[in-house]
């Protein structure tokens, strides 16, 4: 299929996804108890006050009318106003998005830079001592809950080694270097368990490939182990791993909440959690949609990579 046609098709389906997901999010807000009015009025609320506030915010309209109003505005690029902070959602999200994306990039870089070599190293000699050590270490790091890892990293790098000041976040605008050197640690905390998972996954994929006949052919050519790994095995072994890595990236993006909490990073994740508990519908909706766009894009990239890696596969 023509690539341009393909892209157009993917964009169309992206919009379909966005609409479905936004509807689901909207309905979720209908299901869960509590609303932004109650939150903002707190225990001072009286029925009249609640009623009046709801009326003001148009919350008393039919649910679908409200949804379509939102949709209409969103289509014009207006994602509404935060019920909690009374500022435009786009304004609220803007900087946080870039912070979270930086965090994601840093952790993904960690994941890729560490897990792929480590996975190769381990599967180079299956059941050798390096393999055993790597497997054991990854197994253990996989078992540490993220918040706990965050604390341990804060302890080690913040208090013992004094490489950063826990809780002292810098905005990129304040000092980009300080920002990055702070973000390295939460990035690490996010990356460590993911590294373990990718290593495990990659390792088993490589082992599967090592058993094949074409590897035997490569050996007969006089390749080194490394040569076989890089020139032959890796490409084939990466096919399933690519999917996994895309999932890991999506996961990092969507679930860095806890790490953002532990390190006090003003990112999207934290905003999302706060907004959910504040029933700040407009903000949640916008964040969810952002994540959808990124995930769909990632999966599109995966599909393309697939075709590149496995010549038999065709995107239809």
């Amino acid at each position: 299929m023509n690539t341009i046609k393909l892209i157009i098709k993917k964009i169309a389906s992206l919009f379909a996804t966005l609409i479905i997901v936004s509807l689901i999010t909207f309905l979720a807000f209908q299901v869960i108890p509590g609303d932004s009015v109650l939150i903002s009025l707190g225990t001072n609320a009286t029925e009249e006050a609640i009623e009046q506030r709801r009326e003001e915010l148009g919350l008393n309209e039919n649910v679908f009318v409200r949804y379509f109003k939102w949709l209409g505005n969103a289509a014009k690029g207006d994602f509404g106003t935060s019920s909690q902070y009374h500022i435009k959602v786009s304004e609220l999200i803007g900087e946080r998005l870039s912070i979270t994306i930086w965090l994601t990039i840093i952790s993904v870089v960690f994941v890729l830079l560490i897990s792929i070599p480590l996975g190769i190293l381990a599967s180079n000699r299956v059941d050798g001592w390096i393999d055993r050590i790597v497997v054991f270490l990854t197994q253990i790091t996989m078992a540490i809950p993220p918040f706990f890892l965050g604390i341990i990293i804060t302890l080690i790098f913040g208090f013992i080694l004094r490489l950063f000041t826990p809780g002292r976040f810098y905005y990129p605008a304040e000092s980009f270097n300080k920002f990055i050197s702070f973000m390295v640690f939460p990035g690490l905390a996010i990356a460590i368990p993911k590294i373990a998972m990718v290593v495990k996954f990659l390792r088993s994929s490589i082992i599967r490939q090592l058993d094949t006949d074409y590897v035997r052919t490569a050996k007969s050519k006089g390749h080194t182990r490394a040569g076989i790994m890089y020139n032959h095995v890796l490409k084939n072994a990466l096919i399933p791993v690519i999917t996994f890595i895309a999932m890991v990236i999506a996961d990092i993006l969507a679930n860095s909440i806890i790490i953002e909490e532990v390190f006090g990073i003003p990112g999207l994740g934290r905003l999302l959690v706060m907004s959910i508990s504040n029933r700040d519908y407009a903000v949640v909706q916008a964040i969810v949609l952002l994540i959808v766009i990124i995930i769909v894009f990632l999966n599109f990239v995966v599909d393309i990579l697939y075709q590149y890696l496995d010549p038999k596969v065709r995107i239809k």
Partner: protein
Amino acid sequence: MEDNILIYVRNITIGFPNLKTKDIQNVVKNISFQVKKGEILGVVGESGSGKSMTALCMMGLLPKDVLVKGSIYFNGIDLLGLNEDDLRRLKGKEMSMVFQEPMTSLNPSMKIGRQVEEMLVLHEANLSKEERRKRTIEALGQAGLSSGETIYDKYPHQLSGGMRQRVMIAMAMICKPKLLIADEPTTALDVTTQAKIIELIKEICEVNGTTIIFISHDLSVVRKICDRVLVMEDGNLVEEGSIEEIFTNPKKSYTKKLLKAIPIIDLDNKIEKQNVSKEFKLLKPTDSEINSSPINNYKLDSDRILEVKNLNVYYQDQKGLLAKETMTHIVKDVSLYVKRGETLGIVGESGSGKSTLSKTIVGMIDNYDGEIILPNIKPQMVFQDPYSSLNPVKKVGWILEEPLKLQTKLKKEERKERVRQILRDVDLDEKYADYYLSELSGGQRQRVAIGASLIVNPEFIVLDEPVSALDVTVQHQIIELLKRLKRQYNLSYLFISHDLNVVYQICDRVCVMYNGEIIERAPIRELFVNPQHEYTKKLLKSVI
């Protein structure tokens, strides 16, 4: 040790540990032999007798858990004693190997050109990029792949079986190694190509002084090119000698049996049971033959089980993501039919589209125009490449039982019994029911594939090079089996083979394919006696 000995194999025993019974199963039993420099040593023998294992052992390519005893000296160096690095330096450069199964032995995600060129990258690092490319295309050309330029950019799955085999050969020979181990290198090649390749091998041997170990079932080829022969049976080296000794004066009963089984085209004895002689001399099917009834409300002749009309098959080629797709026209305007109880043979040049045609017939390829009429039949197919056409994670017993489960209402016990029966039929020990495909030899896999297609006695079977990896005795047995079943159940076969001897024995009629077209069709005997087309004549000349 003599100076002119290149390889000295001493008391080699190869054993696989059996995980269940914990004992060791020896598949090569204490064999010893020597190969002189510049010699071409033929290795023949029973399928599953350990030929490939011995070859892999020399290359140090056996699976990890295998137990090897004995020693192998290469130029006086004990290969089994070498460390990994030193052994690696020998591979490719000094000794190289053509593997038995070219499909799975090529990296599926790497372009052919790069896979061949890699040899140069590894061993002749001083070459420039352009030189490497030139040499690669040259080597492909030598191996009979004249369109090296286009093949360079193809992936293995886009090649025909024979083309892959030639790629393997080009790859193994490009660095002019001292030792070339060729494990059934020409099984998928038509006789003309085969002849060319064999010429090439001989030439290389002479020019570069390459020593060749040539594993083959094709005794006539062995006879033509080898200096000496080893005969193997069930892991043992049963006989060893020069070509003359073995072929004229075999000592061991197995060797005798083997030689006796060589199929000979005896044109006079071919009994003509078929009444198809009318077709004689037809280059194109006549209108009456194809359009025997009006297209609109066409009903298949009750005695025809398959009818193909004006079939054109295409492959889509896409180079890179952004490039436009192009169509390659592979099968060109082919028309044919198969009658009930008949065997139609298809012979032809490697890469002429035989497999493509057969895959289209069974419905695996959608990109075609023309008509395929196959009323109410589920054709079975034996693929050219049995290893990739059978499920790698299932045991042989399961694979054989599967069609029974799907197409019969037999009870479990009956099914098991049928499986045992078919294993015997294809001359495999019952124990193989418990094996995975990866644990079988090439010929054994092929027999499993045949067994799986025959087990439900389907009315119509497409067999794509079904016996290419079998030694002549087993081959003979399989052919007899096919014939017997055909008589017994009135089965029909579409039989693709480059082995004219085999074709002669089993087929009633033959179509000759060349460059995607059927250039000649005739009853078997007529074809052999009186070939019309130039290509057919050439084909037959290389056999008879």
